[in-house]
């Protein structure tokens, strides 16, 4: 029990950060119109692609002769980058479609 409290104490800054970011996330999108639900989901999908930064850090920390870490890390970088690029491009294409609609009608 003591060690749990100690861990929380040591990471207090990050925990504050976490709580504030959760509340911010709720606030930021609270007034979204229904028509934007899917693009917003897609945009959020692209943003969590930031996990690729973690994959890059893993690769930079791995020692060059640790082939297991290097190959798993390589895979992580590829799929993370797929998430980022695919997410932003798909969102952009969706929103492009939204823009054209009012012109036609």
């Amino acid at each position, binding site marked *: 029990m003591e060690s749990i409290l100690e861990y929380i104490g040591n990471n207090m800054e990050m925990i504050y950060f*976490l709580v504030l970011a959760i509340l911010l*996330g709720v606030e930021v999108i609270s007034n979204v119109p229904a028509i934007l639900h*899917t693009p917003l*989901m897609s945009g959020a999908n692209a943003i969590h692609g*930031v996990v690729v930064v*973690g994959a*890059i850090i893993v690769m930079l920390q791995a020692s060059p002769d640790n082939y297991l*870490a290097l190959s798993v890390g390589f895979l992580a970088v590829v799929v993370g*980058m797929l998430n980022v690029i695919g997410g932003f491009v*798909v969102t952009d294409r969706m929103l492009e479609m939204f823009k054209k609609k009012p012109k036609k009608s």
Partner: protein
Amino acid sequence: MISLNILEITYLIASITFILGLKMLSHPDTARKGNLIAAAGMLIAIVATLTLYQEFDSGKGLNYGLIFLGLAVGTGIGTVMAKKVQMTSMPQMVSFFNGMGGACAALIAIIEFQHHQHATVSGFDGELLVMLLGLLIGSVSFSGSMIAYGKLEGKIKDKVLPMNQAINMFLLAVIIVLIGIQMFNGSDPLFFYGLLAIALIYGILFVMPIGGADMPVVISLLNSFTGMAAAFGGFLYGNKAMLTGGILVGSAGTILTILMCNAMNRSLTNVLLGAFGAGSAGA
């Protein structure tokens, strides 16, 4: 030391662009610009990590080579897939990319576990807990998203196991017990990979009984899962860009999921459990 400070500042900038991007994405007029702003922030974070995280070390030439190759491959495949996809197939594409993000978070947890095994920690091992949660949520999100993708593509038929919901509850209990064992008795690779396997199966069984019409809601929920997995990764490294990006998506995604349910005049539990009843009646 200076380069590390610059790196932290670029992470701050990236976090701000994520918040602004999300805010702008929720208004029709600014949505497209918001997406681009978030993309620019992501680019800054990636480039800064590559150049500033550690001073270039010629002994790690192989690592850099593999990173650049990985980034190039991911960019190439991602661009082609996203450009070629039909407008009507957008939701499954989002699901696919979401699954990739989940896989990335799970893979990071696996490598970190390899490093962590050699360390001896007395008392509460917070790092291990964060790792396990990242692995768990990342792999559930990966397998779940792949099933959602397959279903929307029409490759996977709706299939409900007998007592599917009971099996899910049982798996969830097993997952909690496994995490508990590892937290109190130290981590054994057997339990770690067992957790990975059960999490993957859970993801499949979680999405399997849900009908196609409710899939966007499920994708949105899995999207927020991946966000949380990314945030656990950020917690592990003390990386604030990952933490903000992940948590923002985690909480915004959860709210968005609820909003989407409300738009269909249903509750989240209704979508997750109600479809099960309809499916079993059909089967």
